């Protein structure tokens, strides 16, 4: 068995989004040989789609005056519904301002403070003349201060292009159109990954002293998601499939309040941050009734629930694609909409034929972010497997607990990239390659066999695309914003059956070379396993916390559930098994989140 190319590197990073690239820069700057694998050219990564901005307590904008990492810390912990690791949150908030300034130093054209006259919510904002030219901030949900740094409407794009320019400058090796299929490991330590070239379909092995998972989220497990189509949770799946690595808090799934109907394309929180309203079928602004203090800018889980609750009460707008609500930004004025919210304008025009300067935008809660992921310690080191790190959305570092604040994900990518990247470099300097070629052979052979079996089409009955839609449907139907025992039990049962069938796929086409159907078939079993972990974790958690809302257990239960779910894949039981660990509370004991009735269940309004 030697029909594959072998690459050797110090650090292998799977995923070339912002988290992976930022960590690569840190390791490469310290003289290590770094190779990044990416499904797509790095600049096409989903990081580019983050429009709104990143949180960092610079306190330059007038509405951000008095801000500090301490205030950012409190917002993050409350946002997480006390599910986050407070030691991690502290490291993060302290480093975020440095990371923003460093990105500015590398070339990000952050939007700056100006003396332009500006009215917000009926009041004029007076900027400090001494701050003109410094990095400004906009308002985002769940924050006490205006803290979200941005570049017009393309923060993720600008940040990714700049970060990638540093990767280019440092001469880091990037292999694009390559997909990792499995981790090379002996049950104790990771030695790299088996990958498939998406140009030719050929298998490759990458052997590394340290391997890093930075593959982003699993949004596409849900049929309707704001995520890019490549966000299929690959990195989490290959970690889970070692049988040794746990995934943390997989039941913590964020639904963004304003996904465009029907495509699910994201309408950034910046729209509400800049003063947009949510309206019902009568044109009535309903959020102040539910959340008098934060209104449209309560945290995302709260706003999403209120929206669905309001639609259930019969106030949704009927459409061929089901009920939705309206987002109204018309009162912000053409000039503001055309510059600071240009991306929204162009999305509405292109995809819905709507002009948001004059018309309402149809929106509803849509899958957006995975708080859960490969469980790591505060240094990014993966539980249960040596020489393996993970960061970004793929990881459960646990900055976000059960609900991530808007602007904290983009911030997490570069802040954790900086912090964990340094740990990776430090670790790798003392790590050995130390791999047996027979181990590599065996892992490549396992993947080659899967591919051969699919190509031979001697067995198998299940259609790849159909099975996938079934999985999407189960999650949408039973594991969405509102959850109950009966529905989740149903989901677990159905996903188990689906998991069994996913082992019995049959291709329609030849599966030769870089065939897309074969790629989908190789990916699907891992995706179903992730969906299974989500449903099982949600069923077990008999409380409501952040985005995980159980109608039958509407209150947060700190006595029994102030703990993190760890889902392992058990090959003996052929299903996920759950374990738990305590949540680290260092500074802020559990309390009220301070925006509405988030912990006390839905208002009974029939």
């Amino acid at each position, binding site marked *: 068995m030697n029909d594959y190319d072998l690459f050797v590197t110090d650090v292998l990073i799977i995923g070339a989004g912002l988290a992976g690239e930022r960590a690569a820069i840190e390791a490469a700057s310290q003289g290590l040989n770094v190779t990044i694998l990416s499904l*797509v*050219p790095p*600049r*096409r*990564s*989903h990081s*580019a*789609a983050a429009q709104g901005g990143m949180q960092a307590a610079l306190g330059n904008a007038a509405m951000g005056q008095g801000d500090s990492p301490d205030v950012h810390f409190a917002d993050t912990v409350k946002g997480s519904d006390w599910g986050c690791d407070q030691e991690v949150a502290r490291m993060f908030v302290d480093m975020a301002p*440095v990371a*923003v*300034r*460093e990105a*500015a130093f*590398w*070339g990000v*054209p*952050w*939007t*700056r403070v*100006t003396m332009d006259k500006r009215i917000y919510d009926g009041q004029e904002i007076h900027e400090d003349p001494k701050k*003109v*030219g*410094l990095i400004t901030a906009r308002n985002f949900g769940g924050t006490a201060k205006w803290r979200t740094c941005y*570049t*017009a409407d*393309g923060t993720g*794009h*600008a940040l990714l*292009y700049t970060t990638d320019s*540093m990767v*280019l*400058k440092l001469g880091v090796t*990037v292999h*694009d*159109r390559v997909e990792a299929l499995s981790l090379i490991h002996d049950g104790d330590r990771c030695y790299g990954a088996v990958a498939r070239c998406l*140009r*030719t*379909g050929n298998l490759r092995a990458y052997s590394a002293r340290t391997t890093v998972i930075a593959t982003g989220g699993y949004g596409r497990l849900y049929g309707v998601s704001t995520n*890019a*189509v*490549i966000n299929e949770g690959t990195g989490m799946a290959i970690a889970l499939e070692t049988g040794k690595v746990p995934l943390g808090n997989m039941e913590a799934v964020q639904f963004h309040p304003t996904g465009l109907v*029907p*495509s699910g394309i*994201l309408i950034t929180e910046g729209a509400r941050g800049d003063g947009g309203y949510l309206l019902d079928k009568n044109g009535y602004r309903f959020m102040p009734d539910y959340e008098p203090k934060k209104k449209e800018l309560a945290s995302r889980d709260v706003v999403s629930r209120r929206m669905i609750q309001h639609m259930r009460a019969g106030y949704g707008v009927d459409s061929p694609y089901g009920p939705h609500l309206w987002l109204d930004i018309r009162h912000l004025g053409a000039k503001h909409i055309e510059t600071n919210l240009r991306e929204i304008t*162009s999305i509405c025009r*292109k*995809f819905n*034929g709507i002009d948001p300067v004059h018309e309402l935008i149809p929106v509803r809660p849509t899958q957006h972010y995975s708080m859960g992921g490969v469980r790591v310690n505060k240094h990014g080191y993966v539980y249960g497997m040596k020489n393996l790190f993970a960061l970004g959305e793929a990881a459960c570092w646990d900055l976000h607990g059960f609900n991530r604040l808007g602007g904290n994900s983009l911030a997490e990518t570069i802040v954790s990239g900086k912090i964990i990247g340094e740990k990776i470099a430090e670790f790798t300097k003392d790590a050995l390659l130390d791999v047996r070629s027979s181990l590599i052979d065996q892992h490549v052979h396992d993947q080659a066999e899967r591919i051969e079996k699919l190509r031979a089409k001697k067995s198998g009955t299940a259609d*790849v*695309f159909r099975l996938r839609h079934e999985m999407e449907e189960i999650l949408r139907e039973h594991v969405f914003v509102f959850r109950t025992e009966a529905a989740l039990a149903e989901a677990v049962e159905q996903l188990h059956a689906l998991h069994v069938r996913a082992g019995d796929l049959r*291709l*329609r*086409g*030849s599966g*030769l*070379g*870089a*065939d*897309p*159907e074969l790629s989908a078939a190789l990916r699907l079993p891992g995706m179903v396993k992730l969906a299974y972990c989500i449903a099982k974790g949600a069923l077990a958690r008999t409380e409501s916390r952040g985005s995980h809302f159980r109608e039958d257990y509407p209150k947060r239960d700190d006595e029994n559930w102030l703990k993190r779910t760890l889902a392992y894949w058990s090959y003996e039981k052929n299903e996920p098994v759950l374990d738990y660990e305590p949540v680290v509370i260092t500074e802020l004991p559990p309390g009220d989140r301070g925006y509405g009735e988030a912990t006390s269940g839905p208002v009974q309004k029939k």
Partner: protein
Amino acid sequence: MASRELTFRILRYNPETPDVKPHLQDFHLNEEPGMTLFIVLNRLREEQDPSLRFDFVCRASICGSCGMLINGKPNLACKTLTKALPDVTTLMPLPVFKLLGDLSVDTGVWFRDVSLRTESWVHTDEVFDPDAAEEKMDNELAKEIYEAERCIECGCCIGGCATANIKPSFIGAAGINRVARFMMDPRDKRTEQEYFEVVASEDGVFGCVGLMACDDNCPVGVPLRSQLAYVRRKMAVAGWHMGRGR
């Protein structure tokens, strides 16, 4: 009202079967409200031919993956609504870039090469000070830089460029715009002579013959015409300075 039956005439090429020459294949499907080419191509793959190759990532005109020739004109497939298309639509891969199969082309490798050749990163000898406040910048300048930074490297300007089609080493409007982005950025300390070496050649800004299809074809509205003019003017002046210095 009965929906239209749409015909898509798609270029097929599979590197695994070199004996089969590239050819056009017709697919049919019924139009639905709000249908885009993203929906069309995925449905064709799922329902009619699972081997059909094409590239999408964000499906929201942000990532630049899905540039192709739609009835001969370069554009992003994801934002093309079928209601704007005739009954028969031809889909071809973007020219200039290496063809990987059907509608999938290797734009990533092409753009990476151009970024390396133009050294598209901030050049400075300064070292980042984590304790210092950021250097101030006028917001108007930040906006100008962002206007050039907005290019999504989809390759529509390259596929539609006559010069790029006959001259593989030409960096095209996207490459020149990328240079403009750094030229206007005070954080990049390169001198005009250094830029001259990077971009003032027949492969760079002086290779452009001014047909300006790039400006017409840009799907995100980067002002390529003015960016080309800006770099050309800067480089003409630099050339004049260098000539006088000799």
